[in-house]
């Protein structure tokens, strides 16, 4: 083709809709599956995690207050944009994961956004209820987002796994701080670029790259985090993270215990339910 020297990308964090470097100034080398250098990724610090939680909290009222129809369209738009950058993702996933079938993985990731986009305005129908209480009251229960969710993305599946973790969190109106796969962070940052140019408001998804074991305890103990998804947590620190989460009674999703799930299977509603609260409302019926 040509001898042109390509422009190399600087991989940064994604916080509050912006792409800052780590406040710590640290980076770490990311290699491909054969050990070849790919890029330097920002190595986020606890302060970056703190900023990401603050950004997620700030974005929560607007995102949770958006209509389900609107959120559905926003998620679908992510799929559209992802489709447009399909080849870039295929290259990155192939490099990161060393898989032969990167294309099918990317296809599945795109389709997963579509799947969850369709859930935004159905989950309340499926998980909500009108309660036939024994009295002159109208009582109903609606699922509501739990708030700010800290998610540890799976370590192996750098894109499909990541999407499978993030999409249900934001489909339900939560905002998210996600720690990408430690050794395979590049698709996560490229996904951030998609999110930044899509209609997902800044702060709804915040992506940290770096050492999972360093960042996770700060997120697990952060008092303004409502739920913790341990999917990508190393076995060695899972119990410690659960203990830290108990400090403010966080909802802890223990997915990924004993190995990474098979991301190609249809997810079901488990991940939606895990980040939803049930709110029951009562009102008397009278004249």
């Amino acid at each position, binding site marked *: 083709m040509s001898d042109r020297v390509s422009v190399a990308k600087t991989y940064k964090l994604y916080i509050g809709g912006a792409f800052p470097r780590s406040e710590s100034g640290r980076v770490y080398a990311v290699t491909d599956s054969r050990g070849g250098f790919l890029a330097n990724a920002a190595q986020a610090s606890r302060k970056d995690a703190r900023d990401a939680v603050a950004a997620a909290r700030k974005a929560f009222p607007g995102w949770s207050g958006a209509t389900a129809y609107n959120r559905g369209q926003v998620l679908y738009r992510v799929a559209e944009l992802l489709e447009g950058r399909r080849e870039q993702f295929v290259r990155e996933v192939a490099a990161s994961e060393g898989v032969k079938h990167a294309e099918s993985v990317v296809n599945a990731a795109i389709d997963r956004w579509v799947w969850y986009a369709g859930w935004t305005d159905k989950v309340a129908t*499926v*998980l909500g*209820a009108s*309660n*036939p*209480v*024994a*009295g002159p*009251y109208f*009582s109903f*229960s609606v699922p509501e987002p*739990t*708030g700010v969710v800290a998610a540890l993305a799976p370590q192996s599946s750098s894109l499909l796994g990541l999407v499978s973790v993030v999409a249900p969190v934001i489909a339900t109106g939560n905002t998210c701080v996600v720690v990408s796969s430690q050794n395979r962070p590049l698709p996560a940052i490229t996904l951030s670029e998609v999110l930044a140019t899509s209609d997902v408001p800044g702060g709804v998804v915040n992506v940290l790259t770096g050492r999972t074991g360093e960042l996770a305890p700060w997120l697990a103990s952060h*008092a303004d985090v*409502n739920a913790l998804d341990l999917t990508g947590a190393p076995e060695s620190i*899972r*119990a*410690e*993270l*659960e*203990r830290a*989460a*108990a*400090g*403010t*009674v966080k*909802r802890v999703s*223990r997915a990924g*215990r004993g190995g990474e799930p098979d991301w190609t299977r249809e997810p079901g*509603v*488990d991940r939606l*339910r895990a980040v939803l*609260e*049930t*709110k*029951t*409302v*009562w*009102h*008397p019926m009278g004249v």
Partner: protein
Amino acid sequence: MSGEPMSWEYAPAPESRDIANLKPAYRMFVDGKFVDGTGEPLKTINPATEEVLAEVATASKADIDTAVRAARRAYDKVWGRMPGAERAKYVFRIARLIQERTRELAVLESLDNGKPIKESRDVDVPTAAAHFFYHAGWADKLGHAGYGPNPRPLGVAGQVIPWNFPLLMAAWKIAPALACGNTVVLKPAETTPLTALVLAEICQQADLPAGVVNILPGAGDVGAELVNHAGVDKVAFTGSTEVGKLIQRSLAGTGKKLTLELGGKAANIVFDDAPLDQAVEGIVNGIFFNQGHVCCAGSRLLVQESVADELLAKLRYRVSTLRLGDPLDKNTDVGAINSKAQLDKIRELTESGDSEGAQKWTSPCPMPDKGFFFAPTVFSDVQQSMRIAREEIFGPVLSVLTFRTPEEAVAKANNTPYGLSAGIWTEKGSRILWTAQRMRAGVVWANTFNRFDPTAPFGGYQESGFGREGGRAGLEAYLDV
């Protein structure tokens, strides 16, 4: 005629204590039999008189192990395999037996707990029966509950319940567990073990297979031992946020499924267009029902400034008509505080309200000479920063704060680590829905308060716990999903 108001003293109308069939000693219930515990027996007292009611066996570590093994056997051999339709019939039987023994259970509950007989009779016991009746019907319909075609039970549930609604909390725990096919080891609260042990008797009368339900009285150490027992698959706890955190911490890494129903500091928001007289009733019900020993009590009254004076005047008059005294008297509205320790805690927090500058008003009701009683108390001029606005008092003490705009009401209501319940009083429908949507709380009562029903999921946001009890949503806690 004379201008002097006539004085109408209601004569005592006590429910007969004999109805409770109180026994001098109660034993624990393990593997279908009442057995002596090897723990140090406890003495449960009547908080209204400070007299000992009965001696109650408690469980040792070995007893807990025996009970968990019995529950495991029952799960493996009988209950876990039984068709749902058959399980249902046992649970229905329990519901019916509770209904038949309502009066006995109500009197016993009031004796042991100190709550007014009208509440144990009209709320606790009927609602307990309703929970069994409701969940019984689920046992053979779990495939329709939205958790897949054949959701499986978890196994052995270790359940620890509080002293504020002893029988009702046992029902909230046991009924869904059994309906879903789990077996149960339940620890009632140290100060209120009696009705749970009568419930054990009811399980016997219902011919429930041995080991399906086991009841182990004891203090906190028994609870800790139970939830940490390796043979327990699922833990359900209702109680303080402090203990809830300890349990969540201690279960970390074990993979045991956990649900927590913890404390609260609910805001009861009264807008200027509220139906004021019913709002007053709701406020009274919200904080003085069960002496305020209610995790979802409306302990923070947020009233719009423009109606604050009028509302407070009405509220004080209404509170002054509350009749405090003998829990067995059918006319008692406010009974005894459950324990000396709780009374001390209420006193301590009330003193902090005084010292932090809130205005205290106390009902002029006559106080009994003995027993643990605390007169209904209303603090006005309370600020967000005061302890009485932030900490759960778990007693008949209301903190009144004011607000100017709906936004301010919402901000103040949500400004707490808790999130169990909230109240909204306004005649404007759209404002109800607007406010309800913004409440970070698991139960929102609009123009009512403290309503409970087995069909309506109950549970908290944030530090008020996780998981729901009641309704379809409540089944999740007892299914392997």
